[in-house]
């Protein structure tokens, strides 16, 4: 006999339409959020153990049921809405700047990218990856942007802390060398 708390967690997550935070689950079940996380991990493991076609994952700060990635071919045939269009290279680069530098203004993004980012930012907001998170206190009061909860859901991350540290992307010595050579910095000129 599964415990009441485990079963209630399953029941609630089945009717939720977005990730449910352990705080809320804990409140409803009169348990600590930490205990809720343990229960959910237990449930998730039990689905894996018997090879269910769905999984329970922690994403964007909460728990949710989703289809098993293995079965994407079947699910894609079922879902009528086409897959969302892929992001352009410019959109991905802008998204990565916001992800790591937020809150950040469009001018700051443009300074890093060396191009105007207005159109790209508008698109990313419409698609829900970015949102306005405040205003710069300085003169001009530029709108500041950050990544949204949907961004985490789309990336399958629990929180921004799960992003690979930016430092890991700094080019290695061979790339820096190539760039230096490109700029004639190797003293050979």
């Amino acid at each position, binding site marked *: 006999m599964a415990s009441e708390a485990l079963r209630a967690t399953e029941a609630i*997550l*089945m*009717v*939720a*339409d*977005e990730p449910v935070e352990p705080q809320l689950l804990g409140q409803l079940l009169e348990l600590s959020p930490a205990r809720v996380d343990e229960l959910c991990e237990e449930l998730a493991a039990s689905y894996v153990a018997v090879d269910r076609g*769905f*999984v329970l*994952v922690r994403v964007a700060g909460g728990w*949710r*049921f*989703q*289809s098993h*990635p293995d079965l*994407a071919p079947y*699910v894609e045939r079922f*879902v009528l809405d086409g897959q969302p269009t*892929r*992001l352009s*290279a*410019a959109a*991905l*680069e*802008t*998204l*990565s*700047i916001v*992800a*790591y530098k937020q809150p950040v203004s469009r*001018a700051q993004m*443009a*300074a*890093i*990218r*060396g*191009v*105007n980012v*207005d*159109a790209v930012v508008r698109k990313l907001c419409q698609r829900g990856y970015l949102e306005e998170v405040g205003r710069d206190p300085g003169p*001009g009061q530029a709108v500041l942007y950050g990544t949204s909860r949907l961004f985490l*859901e*789309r*990336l*399958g*991350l629990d929180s921004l802390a799960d992003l*690979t540290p*930016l430092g890991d*992307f*700094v*080019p290695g010595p061979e*790339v*820096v060398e*190539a*760039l*230096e050579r*490109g*700029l*004639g*910095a190797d003293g050979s*000129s």
Partner: protein
Amino acid sequence: MSYAVQTGDFDGPFDLLLHLILRDEVDLYEISLAHIVDGFLAHLDAQVGVVDLELTTEFLVIAATLVDLKARRLLPGPVDVALDEELALFEQRDLLLARLIEAKTFRDAGDTIERLVQAASRSLPRTAGLEDRFIALAPDLLAGINAADIHAAWLRVSAPTPPPPRVALDHVAPIRVSVEEAVEDLVARLPGAGALTFRSLTDAFGDRIEVIVRFLAILELYKQGLVELDQTTTFGDLTVSWVVDPAMAAGTGAVFAGVDAYDG
């Protein structure tokens, strides 16, 4: 897309430079600077009135740095330059290098985001929501809302947004020069004119970009062996003289063909 240098699908100067240096593994010597500058000017031309001063300046700095670096490598060395000038150039180059590294860093981070999105898109979340028997229990979200609220919300969401503040640029004359035009002008002026100083060839220009473009054009001609350059003293005038070549007397077509070839 504002600012796109008209060289394929590149999204701005860094993107283009990165591509040129890393992907094609050619060095700056091979970069068609003329192409970048021309693309930039074409952009300025098309954007009269809506030029982003900050970005324009930025592009100019990059272009000028490139010109400077490139000139060092094209001109016959050893060029005797003052230490200050040399250091300033190094500083500019390091700044450019730092920005290229930054651009590359965020691009690679973007690739990882794409991989995460692709992997995550293989799972779809459950979004069925409440079963009918529970919906009746759910609070009526429209409680207390009337037609006036809906009307007010529509006015709020559809009102024209005030145009963003912008710097008036009416006083800035658009610059209309291209390397090709500068080459054309030089080919018309130089033969038979003897040795002219670079200063005398550019002192009519008020805009720095025109001087830069003119300098690029001269480098172009030098590379093709059509002119000789001479600088007798440090900071002295650079003199430009036409190399008499009977093969070229037929016309200037070959020169322009050369400009295209130079685009590499």
